[in-house]
């Protein structure tokens, strides 16, 4: 907050739920006094410490790199630790990310979903023969390394999944996080998979052809990954394989 003076009183309106407890989800209001530089992560911890120890939400690093604290913030997927309360109104609504299995309140099981995607798309370097460890690193153009790194920045927070129109209609869609992974390994010369191999993983409506180009994923990615470009590019490459 730039202007000094009386701090705002905030209302955090949180969607409370406990799957398995057989009670309807309901909104609950918590009053928090805003402090300078306050993030939602700080506000939520204050609530849990002072008002309600049973409030569930996930966080680890508080610096936007671990990907734990994704949630719907005023209806839009985002990271709690990267959201300053001053950028929002006096009442902020918080709800769990959709699509993922609900654990309770603001906590969802992104990990289970991400592991499933990793196994399904085999998101690791595929090599016929393991290089000897005595060998030095295989050289790589710095520009290519940078391009791979750019896509490797994904923190698997699930915001793109929560913002995806297709995933709300078919839960077997791999989502932008999955397609971005494929784009990343496709770029990497250390991965020996061909476009045909990748086509077998994502060359249908559960993969790159399921995307309706609504691009919610691109708009909400907290890391600003170029998801729109990557999906469009992959679709062209996969279409070429499909026509063969």
């Amino acid at each position: 907050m730039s202007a000094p003076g009386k701090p705002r009183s905030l209302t955090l309106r949180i969607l409370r739920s406990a799957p398995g407890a057989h009670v309807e989800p309901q909104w609950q209001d918590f009053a928090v006094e805003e402090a300078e530089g306050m993030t939602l992560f700080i506000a939520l911890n204050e609530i849990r410490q002072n008002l309600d120890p049973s409030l569930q939400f996930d966080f680890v690093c508080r610096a936007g790199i671990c990907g734990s604290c994704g949630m719907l913030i005023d209806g839009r997927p985002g990271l709690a630790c990267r959201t300053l309360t001053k950028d929002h109104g006096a009442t902020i609504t918080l709800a769990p990310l959709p699509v993922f299995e609900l654990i309770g309140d603001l906590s969802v099981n992104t990990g289970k979903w991400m592991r499933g995607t990793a196994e399904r798309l085999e998101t690791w370097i595929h090599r016929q023969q393991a290089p000897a460890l005595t060998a030095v690193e295989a050289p790589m153009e710095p520009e290519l390394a940078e391009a791979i790194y750019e896509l490797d920045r994904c923190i698997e927070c699930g915001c793109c999944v929560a913002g995806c129109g297709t995933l709300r209609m078919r839960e077997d869609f791999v989502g932008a996080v999955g397609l971005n992974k494929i784009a990343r390994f496709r770029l990497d010369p250390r991965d020996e998979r061909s476009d045909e191999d990748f086509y077998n993983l994502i060359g249908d409506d559960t993969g790159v052809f399921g995307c309706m180009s609504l691009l919610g994923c691109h708009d909400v990615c907290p890391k600003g990954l170029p998801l729109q470009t990557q999906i469009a590019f992959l679709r062209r490459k996969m279409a070429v394989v499909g026509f063969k």
Partner: protein
Amino acid sequence: MKVAKRTFDAVIVGAGGAGLRAALQLSEAGLKTAVLTKVFPTRSHTVAAQGGVAASLGNSTEDNWHWHMYDTVKGSDWLGDQDAIEFMVKKANEVVVELEHYGMPFDRTDNGKIYQRPFGGHSQNYGQTPVSRSCAAADRTGHAMLHALYQRNVRANTQFFVEWMAMDLIRNADGDVLGVTAMEMETGEVSIFHAKATIFATGGAGRIYYSSTNAFINTGDGVGMAARAGIPLEDMEFWQFHPTGVAGAGVLITEGVRGEGGILRNAAGERFMERYAPNLKDLASRDIVSRSMVTEINEGRGCGTEKDHVLLDITHLSPETIMKRLPGIREIAIQFAGVDPIKAPIPVVPTCHYQMGGIPTNYKGQVIVPKDGNPNVPVAGFYAAGECACASVHGANRLGTNSLLDLLVFGKSAGETVVADFQSGQLTLKPLPDDAADVSLARIARLETQTNGVEVNDVRLDMQRVMQKHAGVFRFADMLKEGVTKILEVAERAKHTQIKDKSKVWNTARTEALELDNLIEVAKATMISAEARKESRGAHVRDDAIDCAETPNGRDDKNWLKHTLWYSEGNRLDYKPVNLQPMSADVEPIALAKRTY
């Protein structure tokens, strides 16, 4: 009470860098392995490491492992064991290249090699000029590393028990380790994980301090469990205060910023590190830079209205360099300090960052304890790696980028040792004692029934304030003495913590109460070990240690060139010699000398 039992060849506690590296070794060798972790593996705190991993690849400037070894021994203020240090620096190239093969997206030089940047305390030619030794993926090296290791583990089909909190170490009458008890956080149920080998890779306990770069999950669980089970903790008085935490927020700003040319300035705009470390300046070792900063602040040259911080200046770097090499730092500075480092310097203060001490191990990752006059006898079935372990390679002060190297080298080494012991038939499944889960069940039962107790948050906060005030960057004899009394008082209160929420399912309050038990062990170990060590060495600097020819910088090698061992029972202290002998004949011992940069 009946407790579910699961049986494995090996159980690993923790799925950060060290745990994942060890798990990979075991999974690929076909051992039936369970990895227990409080959070999904890629959320582990290794993800927050920024600046890089050390290896003397020599891709940008001439380098070799001898220089790296010298820097590490000197950085440790000669408290590091030279056999373990030799082992680590010699393995560095192998583990880094291996990661590169796993797909880790390192930055590259123009000729296609892994990009390396200068880092504090790393030098060419035995301390002469800075060397580029830190292999980096921009300023998110830990993130790239953790994901590469995780992907490799998915490939190897490693079995993770996510959101399981290990509670207590299980030992038999002979002291052999037989596994752990663990609580499933979803249900609150306790299970026994019975195994032939148990590897701890639980990270550090930076949360004992009020101001810390550490994540909230860094509660020293493995260290606390080991201490409660009678394993001594080594060199716990040595804590690293990272020079550049964002003032107020505590979030880390990598030393790589100074590696890329960043400069620390006081209120007068002076580059004050030139006075304290004429050779390496802003790239001196972390303990030295942190103390210099606090001295500037204490002497009235701090910045801001409260004169309580200094400035980290990169405005002279090109915006392109900042965007390319330090994009994450720019994000952090904008959010947590409200400044764009392209235009204005970042306010920073020394912030608790890393635990140099831990569970005593050798370079093979075996946990070692004194027995029958031998200070280093392996505990059957017990291994540890990464920040929770003390090999000891960091001694009294760790060099930046040596922590990611530590977790790779010793995670792998612990894994290799377990696989070798398993394949040779040395590891067997020993029978569980009948009371294997009793301690854990009693801890849970106490939390269920405690009335008129104290709040977990209050006790934790008191502990953090005592640690911050009495065992900080500079230490004072009388404050340490008082600190011991205070921390023992806090520890007494911690026995009566009470939780309001008694539900079984996803009970965060209960988890935090159990974590506090671990933090308290670490806090006691730190304060008591620090009070006892009557000298200045590395990160442990006392007002009553005198800088003279006999004790350079207050370091008293005659009396204190030894490792501390703290036992939880009775807060007993013991000591063991530092290994000044390297592992092989490839290198001479690095001789004791006064430490200057």
